[in-house]
């Protein structure tokens, strides 16, 4: 392949204007001792048809979610992506544009950002959002930074039922931020309200939690509020047609993984970091924010606003270093949320909950299978325990055509989206019976 349009004539004419006689002269001022005097050891170029052939062979070495029935969870879910979502978000004027530095030429992206922010606020019951962060885990990191900055406090309390990858991310970024997340003990699948001292910046709770279970969320956040800490909820956007929104259960900041909002599984990315907060924290929010305004003729238009928070203005004092974010994924999320609307959101949530409940009941009928945490309410995901290592069960299920997991210690997570049918759930039950038999 080659996409440079230069003809030999072009090159000659351009070099002539520069008074040069060869391409090499463009680089002649570079010190000799840093120049690569050999060709790059990257395989020779491929034609488009060869390249797609190579990639097709790699792709076929994977067993994807149309070949295996996907009951996997753990932060990414096989929800259905309507055809209209990427037919629109994929339009090339949007896909091939840069961050809207010249708003007059980027009203499309800017309005889409504004509408996305609006829908995220409606969804979470909070007051302000932004144009996206990298993903759910880094959104949590940013939320913690915000809380520490806003409270001037140090300690970061994290429920023991928060996704371990999110905790791992906090530990990693904490090396720079100068904090270490303190993990609260879990008791039968949920956590108890901790005492929140005046040195606690925030309390982080995932609800539904990593096992899909519903936490005593209001109590937990009451404790945070009473202690003067920011209450941070890690939420599942598609739970909010059914579950009380973060703003209502007392969250000050809500962060979540937006993959479920019309975005494909994509082996983990690009996903969507969703964040929403209260107005008092708006000037501490990370990332781009679109705002509505008017032009010189009074016509309504949209711009990037509150940029004084950002790295290109505030540099080392910026609220975050984020520059490139996940805007296009946020645009897709907007199409998806508007496709669902309030009724669709509720119906979809009910469907997930109903199928998960049915699956839990159906699967625990299989001898040797039990719920890791009996009794507590859950949303679309739950943990199973077996009379043998969960990894073995997972492998046996793959052989029978099912993707289930991830494995969490002794347990295996099972997630049900609106996409899973009763027949598939029953078939999974049969497969488990075989696998354990």
């Amino acid at each position, binding site marked *: 392949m080659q996409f440079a349009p230069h003809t030999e004539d072009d090159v000659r004419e351009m070099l002539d*204007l520069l008074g040069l006689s060869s391409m090499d002269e463009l680089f002649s001022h570079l010190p000799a001792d840093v120049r690569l005097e050999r060709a790059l050891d990257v395989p020779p170029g491929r034609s488009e048809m060869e390249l797609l052939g190579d990639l097709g*062979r790699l792709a076929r070495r994977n067993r994807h979610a149309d070949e295996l029935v996907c009951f996997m969870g753990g932060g990414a879910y096989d929800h259905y992506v309507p055809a209209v979502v990427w037919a629109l978000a994929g339009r090339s004027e949007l896909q091939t544009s840069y961050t809207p530095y010249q708003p007059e030429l980027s009203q499309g992206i800017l309005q889409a950002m504004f509408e996305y922010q609006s829908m995220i606020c409606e969804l979470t019951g909070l007051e302000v959002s932004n144009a996206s962060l990298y993903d759910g885990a880094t959104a949590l990191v940013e939320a913690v930074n915000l809380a520490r900055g806003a409270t001037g406090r140090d300690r970061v309390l994290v429920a023991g039922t928060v996704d371990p990858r999110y905790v791992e991310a906090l530990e990693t970024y904490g090396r720079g931020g100068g904090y270490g997340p303190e993990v609260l003990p879990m008791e039968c699948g949920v956590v108890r309200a901790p005492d929140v001292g005046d040195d606690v910046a925030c309390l982080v709770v995932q609800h539904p939690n990593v096992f899909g279970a519903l936490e005593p969320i209001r109590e937990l956040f009451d404790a945070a509020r009473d202690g003067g800490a920011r209450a941070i909820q890690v939420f599942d956007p598609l739970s909010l047609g059914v579950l009380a929104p973060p703003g209502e259960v007392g969250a000050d900041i809500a962060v979540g993984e937006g993959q479920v909002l019309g975005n494909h599984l994509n082996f983990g990315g690009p996903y969507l970091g969703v964040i929403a907060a209260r107005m008092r924290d708006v000037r501490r929010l990370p990332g781009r924010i679109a705002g509505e305004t008017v032009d010189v003729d009074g016509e309504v238009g949209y711009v990037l606003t509150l940029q004084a928070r950002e790295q290109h203005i505030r540099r080392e004092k910026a609220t975050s270093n984020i520059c490139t974010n996940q805007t296009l994924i946020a645009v897709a999320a907007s199409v998806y949320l508007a496709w669902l609307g309030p009724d669709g959101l509720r119906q979809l949530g009910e469907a997930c909950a109903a199928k998960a409940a049915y699956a839990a009941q159906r699967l625990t009928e299989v001898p040797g299978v039990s719920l890791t945490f009996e009794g507590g309410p859950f949303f679309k995901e739950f943990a199973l325990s077996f009379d043998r290592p969960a990894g073995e069960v997972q492998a046996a299920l793959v052989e029978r055509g099912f993707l289930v997991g991830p494995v969490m210690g002794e347990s295996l997570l099972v997630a049900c989206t609106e996409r899973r049918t009763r027949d598939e759930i029953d078939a999974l039950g049969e497969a488990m019976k075989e696998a354990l038999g």
Partner: protein
Amino acid sequence: MTAGGRSQIGAPVRVSDPALPKTLDALSRPGRRAYDLPALDVPEGTIPEEHRRAQAPRLPEVGERDLVRHFTRLAQRNFGVDTGFYPLGSCSMKYNPKVADAAAAMAGFFRLHPLQPESTVQGALELLWLFERAVCEITGMARATFQPAAGASGELTGLLLMRAYHERQGDPRRRIVIPDSAHGTNPASVTMAGYDVAEVPSDARGLVDLSALQKLVDSDVAGLMITNPNTLGLFEEEIRELARTIHEVGGLLYYDGANLNAILGRVRPGDMGFDIVHMNTHKTFATPHGGGGPGAGPVAVTERVVPFLPKPLVERAADGRFFWDHDRPESIGRIHGFHGNFAVLVRAYAYVFGLGGDGLREVGERAVLNARYLAERIRSQYPLAYPGPPMHEFVATAKPLRRHGIRAMDVAKRIIDLGFYPSTVYFPLIVEEALMVEPTETESKETLDAFADAMLQAAREAREDPHVLHEAPVTTPVRRLDEARAARQLKLRW
């Protein structure tokens, strides 16, 4: 060409339903719907009352056709590389090959769950393994991580790697040196990594002031963070001395890869003495930027930094099987929730392996040729901020137009009316009235000439009819927007 609608050469057709509302919220009608879900085939679930949502969110209620027209209209109100020339400095807005989208659209890639058992994702792991080898060869590094979702994330990753490295040496340090011409993400990342910024000035050539650097550095300096060519588009010719200076005090060198396009196949960061490098796939490797993202910011490092890379890394077993290696005791941990922006990496893979070694080198050559040519074409009116020969981009200044009351932004807005996306303005901060122009290698001489003519026309108009520039743009869906009002009367949602 006038400001009139139809007489604009190439004007598109006007989008319809002018009488209809223009936001999703205003289009909403109770009971209208696009969604369509299967009937429930299991018993109702049982979410406890106290957990239930009382009141539905006010999401739009619209039909699928409403959605399609709304977003089609928004798209047509947006300018992309597919619509025209986009010489945004420091952003490498090159053509995004359609073949890369086709690659990412394979079900074998986009229908993979990130936590699938390794046995079911051998192809994806092999792709990452092959791509890691390629980016290491391109940068002259030993190993790489693909977790960072963008350049800034790569920067922070790299700085956390420095921290881990120094702590391992039992000598944590406090300062990172960056040039005054650095991109804003650099200092911001330094802070997030828990370091202090030590700024080194640029000298009269626009290069890092070596003697100033020598004065600045001591054993408390963890490292130097620069891009080369630097943000002025100039090659740091003393890079080896800069490296030596930092290495002598035990510091590490970080390469901001935003400008890697200039030196592809010609110079490798590793060979210049850098220890840590990030790449912006959405710049150098032509992945679409999506109006702000997603991108990807792979980070490659030299041997001594490898132990600290985020985990897991892809390894190949003796039997040829690929697997995730989590057993990395010294790793800094996790930078991304999963494995980074995989679908973006697939596109970057297609670009790199499609071009091959020679193709990549040609990319760099043509990128520099285009920038040098364009700079030459307009320098009479827009002098270069510094004398040195520019590489893949150049920074000119609109200062000469000041006395006509014209600012760089006025030139940019006029360029919009003349049919192009303008260059970056007011960056780097050390240049007054900066115009930072990066044409990229995928633009033709005809396009460069047309843009140069437009720039020269704008300069002429600045002298003869500055009003045209102050009024600009007049051919866009909206004209200059009141940003002060936006920040004062915050309207950030419906």
